[in-house]
């Protein structure tokens, strides 16, 4: 520990303004603050601060994703061997998935953090931690067979156009990870949908269709059981299949107070309401999929827990969060079932509501202002 501090202190003068390595200031700063919480003390206002900081919050979100990640790695292996008709031991299965997923994570973090550091250096900012989370989200929401260069391009797009163009993490309108996902989806549709991409090195004869695709095609007799969908032994994007793993993540987020339970709860209610409405007016098989099933299908659970709750792109006000979450759930199922073009609606629903979140907040703020004005007239 003292050794690291000493090394950092040795390098410090060189990266300061006027130093030889000034161009690496932001990089140095990112590394330094990673090892050591800065020694800065409060200059105005309160003299004690809650020990929570941006790094701590972000790392907890990453921790919450770990169950989904580990399960996803195992499931990649499991689906692979299943398609080949082979059985493999737990470790072999996991290791297979690990070797498939790790490169995605490395590429996502590598590209994203490099851009973040360069931009921070250009602007003279500190490197912000938002990408801790986005960098982990991106690998979890892509099919396992997506080429690495596509992930790199999509990540670069998301960070540059989705975040930095708006002024950096904290100022972005859209969820960065979903921006990357949407970019992939529209730029390279053949690699992001269909039956071929969901299982790594799949045997040709094996149908790799996700339950979601089966549902969209109206083959609801092919849907896996609730139990399979809950535990997640089904094909799909890496992190989205296991409702159980996602629930563990949701619990961590809600218990630590970092994720908004309001958005999660209202999102689930929104999805259920739409699901039930569709059941009532069902005219085709995909509308008949039970509402509970809809919640377990595709990326719904993952989206509601990890994407909709992104504090920057979500609604900021308490009432706004209920509306925002509800509409995400409601629209996700609506788009999923009723539109013919895309099998999944969660991504689009969240991005759409990201755009509308400021409007929702605007009306909540106006309501607060009206309440204050009303106070005067009531008394007068």
């Amino acid at each position, binding site marked *: 520990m003292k050794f690291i501090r000493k090394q950092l202190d040795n390098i410090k003068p060189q990266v300061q303004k006027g130093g030889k390595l000034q161009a690496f200031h932001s990089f140095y700063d990112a590394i330094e603050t990673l090892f050591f919480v800065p020694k800065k003390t409060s200059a105005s206002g309160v*003299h004690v*601060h809650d*020990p*929570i900081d*941006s790094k701590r*919050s972000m790392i907890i979100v990453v921790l919450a994703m770990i169950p989904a990640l580990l399960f996803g790695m195992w499931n990649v292996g499991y689906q692979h061997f299943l398609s080949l008709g082979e059985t493999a031991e737990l470790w072999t299965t996991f290791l297979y998935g690990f070797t498939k997923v790790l490169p995605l994570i490395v590429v996502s973090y590598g590209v994203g953090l490099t851009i973040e550091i360069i931009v921070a250096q250009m602007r003279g900012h500190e490197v912000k931690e*938002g990408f801790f989370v986005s960098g982990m989200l991106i690998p979890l929401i892509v099919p396992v067979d997506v080429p690495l260069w596509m992930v790199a391009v999509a990540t670069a797009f998301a960070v540059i156009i989705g975040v930095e163009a708006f002024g950096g993490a904290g100022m972005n309108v859209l969820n960065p990870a979903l921006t990357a996902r949407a970019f992939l989806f529209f730029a390279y549709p053949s690699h992001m949908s269909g039956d071929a991409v969901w299982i790594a090195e799949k045997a040709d004869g094996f149908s790799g269709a996700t339950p979601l695709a089966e549902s969209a095609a109206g083959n609801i007799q092919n849907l896996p059981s609730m139990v399979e969908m809950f535990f997640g032994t089904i094909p799909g994007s890496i992190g989205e299949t296991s409702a159980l793993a996602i629930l563990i993540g949701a619990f961590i987020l809600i218990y630590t107070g970092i994720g908004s339970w309001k958005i999660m709860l209202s999102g689930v209610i929104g999805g259920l309401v739409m699901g039930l409405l569709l059941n009532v007016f069902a005219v085709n098989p995909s509308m008949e999929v039970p509402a509970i099933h809809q919640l377990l299908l595709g990326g719904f659970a993952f989206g509601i827990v990890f994407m909709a709750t992104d504090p920057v792109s979500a609604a900021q006000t*308490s009432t706004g969060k209920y509306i925002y979450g509800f509409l995400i759930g409601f629209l996700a199922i609506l788009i999923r079932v009723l539109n013919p073009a895309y099998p999944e609606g969660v991504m689009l629903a969240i991005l759409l509501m990201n755009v509308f979140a400021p409007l929702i907040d605007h009306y909540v703020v106006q309501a607060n202002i009206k309440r204050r*004005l009303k106070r005067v007239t009531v008394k007068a």
Partner: protein
Amino acid sequence: MPQIKIKKGLNIPLKGQAEKILSQGKTEGELFAIKPTDFPSLVPKVAIKEGETVKAGDTLFYSKYYPEVKFTSPVSGILKEINRGERRKILEFIVESDGKQEYKKFEAGNPDDLSSEKVKEILLSSGTWPMLRQRPFDIIANPETSPKAIFISAFDTSPMAPDYDFIMNDMAVDFQYGISALKKLTTGNINLVTSAEYSQSKVFLNAKGVDFHTSKGPHPAGNVGVHIHHLNPINKGEVVWHINPQDVAIIGRLFKTGTFDARKTIAVTGSEVLKPAYIKTISGICINAVLEKNVTEGNHRYISGNVLTGKKVDKKGFLGYYSNQITVIPEGDEYEFMGWALPGINKFSKSRAFFSWLMPDKEYKMNANLHGGERPFTFSEEYEKVLPMDILPVHLLKAIIVEDIDLMEQLGIYEVGEEDLALCEFVCTSKIEVQKILRQGFNLMIKELG
């Protein structure tokens, strides 16, 4: 039934609460100071020269824009120094006590028998007027206006705050005199808010001429800002005054004896104080004289007031005009290795992101470290959880940052004081300087409204 029952808020469990032991502090020959910087928006004009002798109650300086608002010496002695800072800004009027404590005589008498004008005149000339503060903007009450109500909170819920029941135990007569004086200043009512958690001292409960209210919940349940918001909210154009109970007693003594007798009892608190206790002293005393050898070794932060709203002072600095407490905590200006990743058993947090939630009844030693870098507003609804008012704090702060006067007004800037949003600053993940921004907003409003 408590009239104000709040759930939002936070009690910060700090180590170093003052024990209920009272001792007499040394005041003879010590240094005392009145600091113009304690009064936001005040432009001081010097009234006497360095080296002149003063009695307790003699004017040291006055307000440039309201010359009738005077600031007087709390002790008799000589004006030792007018301490100036950058650009000759006046920081402190330092008076060295001669130990005799001679008082300037003001007119005495039961305020009930005096006219409003007379009461006002005595308050202004004696230097006790600045004890009255107004909302909006939490500045010295404007002597040209009359408030729609006056609020007094009989309890303080801030971290390690002094217990006014204990402090004011023998001040029933003084307090009542003070209340009578305040009654002359408003056509509205005097609201005395007591705690609903415990029964308060008879000094408060037997007060006459006041409207009683009770409040219950975590900090800021004792803040006047919260009381005003729930009982008699401030709308555009309205003014409410508030005053600390101990200051009411000082005003009472003024009318009882005709002297500016600024003796007060303060709580000496904080994890770095060896024996946290109460001490009888005089307003404006040098912190060093109070603490003497009662602090631990090390690099400390000395605060006049509490850890949320107090002002950082030098070890040889002075007790602020509005302070009834001194807090000493470690400065904490050192690097913490992997601090953001450790379990954090010893770290108190509003969130459950540290494992300290396993020990709910623990008291913590906290230092002045920010515990992280400053970031833009990122996490939402952190502030709302500790602000028991129907106000959207983040939107208000953003309105201030973009200097949108209309929006600031609409979002309730008239109702809040820095102390009300102090907890927001405490819990902020992004380490935003909430109180500083709020004061900038107040300054902007004062400038705009003329």
